């Protein structure tokens, strides 16, 4: 079964139909998706700019990351859940859309970057300057921000790429 057939089958399910036909579901789920994006951006701005050496440099990277990373994980979960509801409700618009898959690749990339460059910082023994990737920390922090921004634009463009 290819993606087209899978999307068509999904479209015919009761769940998919219900999501589409109850008028307030999709706008509300999208709105929650947008609020969760705001949480990710807030966390990303603070943690990425701290690692880039621009913001709150009087606080240790560990303090900043420790406080904001859980919010990012939580918001990413909400984004996944609301995203699944939207994909189930409108499988053709989402699953048959190149921009959506580009967005998913970028999200995966940002997620992996976050894992690689944030989790070690939570360890109190870890010293950023002595880590193997010390020189990469700043550029990767800026890259992370840019990737999240690209994700936001992709998200909006899904509607225009159908």
């Amino acid at each position: 079964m290819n993606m087209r057939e899978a999307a068509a089958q999904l479209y015919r399910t009761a769940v998919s139909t219900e999501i589409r036909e109850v008028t307030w579901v999709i706008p509300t789920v999208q709105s929650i998706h947008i609020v969760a994006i705001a949480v990710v951006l807030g966390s990303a701005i603070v943690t990425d700019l701290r690692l880039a050496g621009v913001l709150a440099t009087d606080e240790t990277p560990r303090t900043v990351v420790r406080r904001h990373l859980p919010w990012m994980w939580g918001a990413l979960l909400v984004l996944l859940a609301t995203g699944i509801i939207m994909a189930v409700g409108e499988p053709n618009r989402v699953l048959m859309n190149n921009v959506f898959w580009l967005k998913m690749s970028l999200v995966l990339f940002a997620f992996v970057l976050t894992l690689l460059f944030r989790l070690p910082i939570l360890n109190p023994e870890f010293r950023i300057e002595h880590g193997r990737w010390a020189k990469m920390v700043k550029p990767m922090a800026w890259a992370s921000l840019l990737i999240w921004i690209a994700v936001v634009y992709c998200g909006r463009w899904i509607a225009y790429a159908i």
Partner: protein
Amino acid sequence: MTWNDFLESVSNSALGTAIREGATTFAWIEGTHVLMVTTVLGTIAIVDLRLLGYPAHRRGAKQLIKDMLPFTWGAFVLAVITGLALFASNALNYWDSNPFRWKMIALFLAGLNMAVFHLTAYRRIAEWDDLLPPPIMARVAGITSLGLWILVAFLGRWIGFSAPMV
């Protein structure tokens, strides 16, 4: 000239027409608008949560506000500029939209709430800078701000799903 005539002239202006008729112009401006609104909400939430008694990456409220506000203001200015551009592309219909009108009211109330906070509790921030929980006026300002800005996000999304846009 009536108000509707004015809105129509805005729509028919060079700017309004360019945005409405450009192949991808509206989409890029809209994408930027969404990015800016979510940045405002995300950065202001950090301050509002602190006002509610949930410390961010530092305990002091004043320095946290100093950390975050440049981003909030910068994003807000760009949100207004892109918002005006979007409005110009279809002024009459946006004006007729109920979610749009309520969004403008929510924005105004959010601004009012911020002004009140800055003229009252914020003036005495030295007294409660690292106090947890903060005084009641700060907590009221925080929850009001958070509630209104989340409402702004919801109403903004609903514009596209309500008459006359749909």
